């Protein structure tokens, strides 16, 4: 039984931790949730339907995340300063990379700020790539409901003004770069023409 339990934790640990991390955007909280989930798995090992273990774990993880969010709402400002240790370590010095990183960070914040079930469904579907059947089983709602919540969640993300602003700035920057690039191409073409003439 212990060997099976260990195997199950190895198999599902990453999924549970990723879900918790992208829902809470805090390393320590995600670790707490992961612990809670696997302690519950141990406590309910005999009762859990092992054919649907993934869905069961995601349901428990989602409930644990909701509990954490409820507990931390008053102190939300403190959440993010230790969240990005891993992400920041991999940052490149290039401006475009930084822009991408800023956009990514902002997107993570926007996902975290979504209410449930939008947050859970966006994380499960778009971040973790779970199929609709798994999400449906995890949340005990119909597939059409999953789709409706997913689309609403994405629309809520698109309504985030900071994300929109970053996207627009990036777009403007790219178009300026394209213009200057095409301008320099034009100049070099003219230079070539003059030279030949």
């Amino acid at each position: 039984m212990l060997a099976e339990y260990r195997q199950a934790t190895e198999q599902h640990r990453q999924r549970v931790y990723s879900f918790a991390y992208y829902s809470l955007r805090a390393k320590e909280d995600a670790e707490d949730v992961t612990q809670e989930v696997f302690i519950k798995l141990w406590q309910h090992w005999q009762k859990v339907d092992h054919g649907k273990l993934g869905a069961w774990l995601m349901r428990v993880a989602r409930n644990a995340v909701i509990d954490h969010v409820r507990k931390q709402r008053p102190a939300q400002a403190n959440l993010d300063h230790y969240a990005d240790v891993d992400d920041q370590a991999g940052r490149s010095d290039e401006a475009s990379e930084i822009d991408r990183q800023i956009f990514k960070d902002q997107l993570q914040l926007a996902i975290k700020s979504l209410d449930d079930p939008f947050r859970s469904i966006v994380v499960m579907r778009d971040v973790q790539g779970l199929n609709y059947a798994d999400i449906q089983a995890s949340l005990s709602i119909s597939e059409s409901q999953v789709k409706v919540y997913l689309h609403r969640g994405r629309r809520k993300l698109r309504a985030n003004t900071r994300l929109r602003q970053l996207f627009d700035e990036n777009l403007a920057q790219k178009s300026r770069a394209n213009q200057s690039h095409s301008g320099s191409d034009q100049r070099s073409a003219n230079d070539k023409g003059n030279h030949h003439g």
Partner: protein
Amino acid sequence: MAKTSESQCYFVQLQIDSYLDGDLASAQQQEFMSHLKQCEACTREFRFAQTLLDTVMDFQQLDCDEQVMEPIYRLANGGHQTTQGVVGSSWAAMVRRFNSGPLLLRYSLPVAAVAVLATVMVLLSISVLTPAGDRPAIAQQAVVAPAQELAQLQQYDPAEIRQAVEDLNLAIEYLNQIGRRTDALISDRFLIRPLQDTLNASFERAAIRNQERTLNDPI
């Protein structure tokens, strides 16, 4: 780009997610794309949605440190969880072993323990209060009792014991009710009403005496 109606844009923007998920039929997809070719606003919206989705899908799958799982494995190996964390404990293991034992053992052991304890208490009190040579017969019986009681208790199954306890509770409740009713009846018949009658009678007598005195008063 040609101008398109607002409602058309609204409808197309609602379809962005379905398009990204590949849920649109081919005719719908063509319609969707032909609208995007004409409409700058919808193209921008579509590109924003696509960028968001690409970025989200680009989030790496994370894994926690091995040390996060360590306390859980300790628990699984027979530890005991506390509110502060997961700490090993032999008490938890003992409780678990006890809980996993046969049902009869789980019920009969506490009952037997209580019976033994009660008997020991009775024996002790008797031996303290009475001289050694003058011990009553009941105390001598009690010395033999624990073993017999244990033997008797183990003959009952837990369902019978539960039923007996329920019956006992019912009987106690019934006796309490009878007691309350009797109490009310007794106090009404023998205490309150006679007292009231006596008081009334004495008041009446006093009133009559006063009346007679007033009538006989020459002033």
